[in-house]
């Protein structure tokens, strides 16, 4: 067990180093001169000024040298200075990440809580009305475009029925709590500010539903498919021949086997949510990584883009590691 986990960990670290190299190379070979984008036409025509700027951001050094500097900086938690905001990229990310983490996690948990049971009942009562409902739900989830869903949600529940709050994390008049974790739900609890807590929670409802939709569709489908697959296995017939109750068979024998692909897919979906949903965050003016990514990309802010990409890569690697480790518990066969 330990050996398995250690070996997965080793692989993850190697992959992480490789990721830094790839990210660095991509960021440095993309066409478009960030300096020109930042300086504006007048300053950009001043050669000396340009050279000074380039030197300031180390853009005049050879590629390998810049990579080493980049790596050295990474080890010291230095992702460089954002060209656009003129602040350390890490500070920017730390500021934007909690909003995304909060939204993504709630959206993901929502998708699991609805998707898995829905997938199970759809498989057990295959081709009945439950199954049809599940199919429609997952179809809507997977296939409706995010911006469309977001607008509909806002239009109906905020604009029309006026039962949900509008975009943003908090009401404009609400007072943000002291920043401890950056997660509003937690910070408001720490501050004991229940009014703001309720406001923050209410603001999460629409965007997290929009965010959950696609994942929910995916999870329902995967759960249903892998339940059906494992229901057909011989050991299920054996379980029936033992005289077990149907609920025991479904939850105790079929589900543990069906869970394996669901975990794989769910983990990747979560990683995707964590890396920031540009569309959802933009529409809901959500100050998260998605929004930050969008702005940085528009400004050709290379240090910021590298920083975000790296964070995203690390999130994926970490989640993959967690998926692998969970296999060790879910599937005894992975360990020889």
């Amino acid at each position: 067990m330990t050996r398995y986990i250690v070996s997965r960990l080793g692989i993850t670290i190697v992959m992480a180093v490789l990721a830094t190299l790839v990210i660095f190379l991509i960021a440095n070979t993309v066409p478009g001169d960030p300096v020109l984008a930042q300086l504006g036409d007048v300053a950009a025509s001043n050669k000396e000024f340009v050279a000074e700027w380039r030197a300031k951001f180390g853009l005049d050094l050879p590629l390998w040298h810049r990579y080493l500097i980049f790596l050295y900086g990474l080890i010291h938690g230095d992702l460089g200075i954002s060209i656009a905001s003129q602040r350390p990229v890490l500070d920017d990310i730390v500021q934007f990440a909690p909003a995304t983490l909060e939204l993504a996690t709630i959206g993901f948990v929502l998708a699991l809580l609805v998707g898995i049971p829905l997938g199970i009942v759809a498989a057990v009562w295959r081709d009945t009305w439950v199954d049809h409902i599940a199919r429609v739900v997952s179809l809507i989830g997977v296939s409706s475009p995010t911006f469309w869903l977001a607008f509909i949600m806002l239009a109906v529940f905020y604009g029309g029925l006026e039962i949900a709050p509008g975009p943003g994390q908090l009401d404009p008049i609400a007072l943000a709590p002291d920043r401890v974790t950056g997660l509003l739900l937690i910070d408001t609890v720490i501050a004991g500010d229940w009014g703001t807590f309720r406001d923050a929670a209410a603001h999460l409802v629409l965007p997290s539903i929009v965010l959950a939709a696609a994942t929910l569709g995916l999870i329902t489908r995967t759960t249903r498919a892998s339940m059906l697959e494992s229901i057909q296995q011989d050991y299920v017939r054996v379980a029936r021949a033992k005289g077990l109750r149907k609920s025991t068979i479904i939850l105790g024998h079929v589900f543990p086997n069906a869970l394996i692909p669901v975990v794989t897919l769910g983990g990747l979906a979560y990683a995707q949510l964590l890396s920031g949903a540009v569309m959802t965050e933009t529409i809901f003016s959500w100050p998260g990584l998605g929004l930050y990514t969008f702005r940085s990309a528009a400004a050709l802010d290379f240090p910021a883009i590298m920083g975000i990409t790296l964070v995203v890569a690390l999130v994926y690697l970490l989640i993959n590691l967690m998926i692998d480790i969970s296999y060790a518990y879910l599937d005894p066969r992975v360990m020889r």
Partner: protein
Amino acid sequence: MNMTFKAELNGAAPDTDTPALKVENLRTQFFTDDGIVTAVDGVSFTVAQGEALGIVGESGSGKSVTALSLMRLLDEPARITAGEVHFQGKDVLAMNPEELRAVRGDRMAMVFQDPMTSLNPVLKIAKQLVETMVVHGRFTPEQAGKRAVGLLGRMGVTAPERAVESYPHQFSGGMRQRVMLALGMSNEPALLIADEPTTALDVTIQAQILDLIRELNRDFGTSVVLISHDLGVIARVCRRTIVMYGGEVVEEGLTEDLLADPRHPYTWALINAVPRIDEVRPSDRRLTTIEGQPPDPFDLPKGCRFAPRCPFRIEKCDSHPDLAEVAPGRKSRCWVTQAGTPLPKKQRHAKAEAEAKAKTEAKTEAKAATPRVIAGRDEAPLLSLRDVVKHFPLPKTGYFQPRRAVHAVDNVDLDVFRGETVGLVGESGCGKSTLARVVMRIHQPDSGEVVFAGQDIARSSQKQIRPLRRRLQMVFQDPYGSLNPRMTVGDMIAEPLRFHGITKTNAETQERVADLLNTVGLNPRVGRRYSYEFSGGQRQRISIARALAVEPDFIVADEPISALDVNIQAQIINLMLDLQEKYGLTYLFIAHDLAVVRHISDRVVVLYLGKVMEIAPADQLFDRPLHPYTRYLLSAVPIPDAVVERERGYLKLDGEPPSSIEPPSGCRFRTRCPLAKEICASVPPPLVEHAPGHVAACHFAGQLQ
């Protein structure tokens, strides 16, 4: 008998007059998109308290569907559309789901065919055993946990305390089947239904499992329904037998009578299609076969369902016969035998006769025992293996651990002469297929010589071997996997012809392909079809045709008949014998069915954990084995003759072969050998010639009583 096994059960003793199981007119149908399949059609039988009933029949005859119907374990689109199933006097078909659940796994239990897929891979063995005991309220979880260990021990699982804490993938097939049996017996059922419980297992393990079932039947009075396609298995366990064909029972009787004197042509054909291990090789080795296919379940014959294939057919057979009594306690569904006409007896070499022959042979030494072996042993062998070693390295388990390897084949010496058939036998994993692949140079041996037709192919490059490839061909076990599904049969056979430049023009190729298909008994027109359109036996014919295309001298056949029904097996054996006669082919024949090996081989090689244990002319090896392992192996084979089975003493080989990663020192068989002495652990026994052509590797050869 182990006390822990006889549990503290105090269910009311069932009244002994009602049969344990009474099935009447059972009909089970599949309502498929293509139409209705009547898989079980009017089946009736009873199983008395404590009786063991056998069900035999070929693939698709409805055995499994019958068994599943008894417990109502079939899903849509299957439906039981008629009949009654009375279990201990209660109507199973009328039970509500809750009553049914209470019977399943409790009074009535089932063991399934494939132990590899029957256990849940993600749950511990303990949980899988305990839940069935707890759900029926007979044991508390603690009691059940203790009992699980006891049961596994009783079923011959080594280290049961550790075993219950393991997951299924950590066990071999034999061990898993023991777990399945433990599962079946965990609530001490009144009836145990076992559907081909040993089909996936080695013959030695099969013997152990059958012993267990017999003991359960004899010592606990558990009634047994045992389903098998192997008449020997039935003969070993069952008092009474029913034979199924096309979803119907066609014959019923005491196993002994039924095997000795079949009263239905189908039973007759089944019995005559299999060679017997206790029978010397007759001069004409062709087996009795019946032509044609099992009936199409969508379109069953109107009259007797066996009529299209029946050699005794008469006019009356156009109408459907009933199952009627033909002698006291014997029923048959056949117009001919119902009218009292006996079926011809096959010329069998009676046992006494065989023994007498063996005695005279022993006196005159091996000369007579190998009638067909080519005289000129002075000629160089066609294939000669010297000290062949093949190990498969395993991935390292840690950076500092030594590299380990599976010792698949170790120091094998073997000569095969032109025109003979050498059989290769041994338990699974003993290196049979590896040896075959070394001969084919699919694997390169680690060391040693493989000389084919005077050329050492062990060290030659593939290019140097290419000319020899024409002379050396292989036929594989799996008729489903070894043919390319995207090529027509004709193209597949034409491929080697073109590759080796045997035929020049297209017309010539087509002609040759047609010839080859004719040779293996297929209509040349099938060349335009794809392999998936054919049955297992037909596919095996196709792969033989493909092997023959290049006019080889030598064919390595790795389990060519294992996946086939007995009648098809007999057809393929006959085909191989004919071809040998016609073209003077040399065969290296691998099979786990020892009776077939005896029947087809001139000489037989016994392998154990990668080493040769014994080599001898076939009849000599089977009648007078010298190596203890050979003795055990032969003793494990069930004989389709209830009288012989009853009177026969068994040698019981316990346990399973040890790991071939760290094989035992000295003699590899010593961990299971009752004769083992100190020397066996220190000195590997050399292969010593005890009689002309009869070699054995044992310090105490011939001393096992």
